[in-house]
């Protein structure tokens, strides 16, 4: 175990997979000479060379379409979208191609590819550059969507994503890169599509993922001082969605708060709440609460932006609401 940052954990997973498997290569904007705009691939270009760390033009459709084509031939491309907001420029290739080809051609097409994309708000980047559209992508069968909240999970899940034979969207949160945590050294793989209890508790279940795990943990610390023990279930993958640990926890606490950074409507919380009502209705002791982003495009002004984003106090308040 070593205590490293999320950035280092992701970088390590990529590096180790490239060392292990020559069919793995990286393509994307500024991944090479620049070293990645978030410095995740710093040093890769010098070590692996321009064939395996490919700087692309600003052409998201060509990046994702190109990754799909290369994956079909048996390579394992890791395509980097500088931010998830630019995934919309490649939406056809993500949604109408990557998510469909295996199914539509009766299982003939196999695309072992990963799309790494940075998302999230809170850095005053304005409406177009601050989105958390994770639920949008989780909507499509055929695409796997992963969004880790800890360095350990980031490493293990990215390795699994690269080894997966399906297209995986791997969503990183821009404000988590500096977060530190214990990460196992060497080959460490976590299966995709498995939720995890990150903090045990008995009074209420907080279901969350990615950046909101950090906020939920802080909220739980605060609640603990008042004698309220929150159990936190981290979804880690949005598709496939593993409801097992969620339901198990809920059947124990009978109360749930779902915390996501994206917009509330048609969001992760909507889906998880619906599943709890469907599958554990008899255990419901209070209406499930959702904490999410206000339904506005994120403004640039710092105060307004923070008003729109979920805050620790919102989580604490929602927990008290269900108790």
């Amino acid at each position, binding site marked *: 175990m070593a205590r490293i940052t999320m950035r280092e954990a992701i970088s390590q997973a990529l590096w180790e997979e490239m060392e292990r498997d020559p069919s793995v290569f990286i393509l994307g904007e*500024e991944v090479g000479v620049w070293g990645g705009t978030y410095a995740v691939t710093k040093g890769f270009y010098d070590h692996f060379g321009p064939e395996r760390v490919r700087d692309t033009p600003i052409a998201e459709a060509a990046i994702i379409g190109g990754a799909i084509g290369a994956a079909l031939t048996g390579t394992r491309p890791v395509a980097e979208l500088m931010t998830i907001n630019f995934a919309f420029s490649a939406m056809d290739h993500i949604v109408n191609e990557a998510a469909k080809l295996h199914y539509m051609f009766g299982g003939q097409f196999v695309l072992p590819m990963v799309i790494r994309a940075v998302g999230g708000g809170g850095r*005053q980047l304005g409406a177009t550059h601050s989105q958390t559209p994770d639920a949008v992508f989780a909507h499509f069968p055929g695409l796997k969507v992963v969004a880790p909240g800890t360095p350990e999970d980031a490493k293990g899940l990215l390795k699994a994503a690269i080894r997966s034979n399906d297209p995986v969207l791997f969503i990183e949160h821009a404000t988590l890169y500096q977060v530190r945590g214990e990460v196992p050294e060497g080959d460490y793989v976590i299966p995709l599509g498995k939720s995890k209890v990150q903090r045990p508790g008995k009074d209420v279940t907080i279901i969350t993922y990615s950046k909101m795990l950090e906020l939920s943990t802080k909220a739980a610390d605060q609640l603990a001082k008042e004698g309220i023990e929150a159990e936190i279930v981290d979804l880690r993958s949005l598709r496939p969605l593993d409801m097992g640990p969620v339901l198990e926890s809920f059947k124990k606490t009978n109360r749930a708060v779902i915390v996501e950074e994206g917009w509330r409507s048609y969001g992760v919380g909507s889906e998880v709440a619906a599943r709890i009502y469907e599958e554990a209705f008899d255990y419901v002791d209070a209406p499930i609460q959702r904490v999410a982003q*206000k339904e506005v495009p994120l*403004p*640039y*002004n710092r105060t307004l932006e923070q*008003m729109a984003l979920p805050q620790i106090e919102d989580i604490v308040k929602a927990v008290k609401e269900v108790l």
Partner: protein
Amino acid sequence: MKKEEHLELYYQMVLIRLVEEQAAQLYQQGKIGGFLHLYIGQEAVSTGLISARQPQDRVITAYRDHGVAINCGLSAREVVAELLGKVTGSSKGKGGSMHMADVNKNFWGGHAIVGAHLPIAAGLALGDQYQKNDGVTICMFGDGATNIGYFHEALNLSKVWNLPVLWVCENNQYGMGTAVERASAVSEIRQKAEGYSIPSSRVDGMDVLAVRKASEEAIAYVRSGKGPYFLEIVTYRFRGHSMGDPERYRKAEEVRQWQENDPIGIYRRYLVDHAIATESELNEVDQRANETTLDAVQFAESSPEPPAEMLFQHIYVDAD
């Protein structure tokens, strides 16, 4: 061109330079958040270009937009206030550095998704064509933007429909850290227009008068109803792509050489050498630009934040 006009162009270039330098400082002080893309080195491009437009001509650009905003007639006050996220900013503090606009000045933004505003520019031109307005839409974008599909769709459509749009590529040699020849099949960007049968020219973007002349001709061509035209303006950004750019992709020597080719210095020398203005007259202009800049900073810093209720304003036009 009359002397006053020369002095006005010179003033705008100096004002942009000073506002950008202030912006860099305000960013370092943590008063500006998000991304900040400076226009330093490229002042002659939009100054020459936009000085050639008529009021009915629309301007639309990418996120490197502070200079363009000033050339379009936005005050330095509104620009700096927007950078500080104040309610007195051109987008009321909701847009920030990348999203300035003033539709009353026919400045249609400030767009942060690379290439996405090109089809919109075609649409602005379509609207004018449809309504038989005689406006020309001037669409500015970087060299990097010519590699995304949007560029090609927009150029093709503009030719097929004979739209009154002037495509202006600001070729500053890099899209972030990627040199043109590493990302574009042709390094003379205007060649891309040939594929769509759009006439083009290439001009030195460090020479404001050359830009101005080429722009006048190009705008006149488009206004005459002959369809779109393509201008490639060759320039260089003296600063990083945005604040905090480690600039590993270019040599300090290369930057230094271009800096010797400072568009403001070139123009200043021209004005003096051709006895259009004296050194002391130009110093006065510098002084005026400096006062305007300091006033803008003062104004922005003392302006109020947007009120909380503004968070939920402007989501829809029609209240439900």
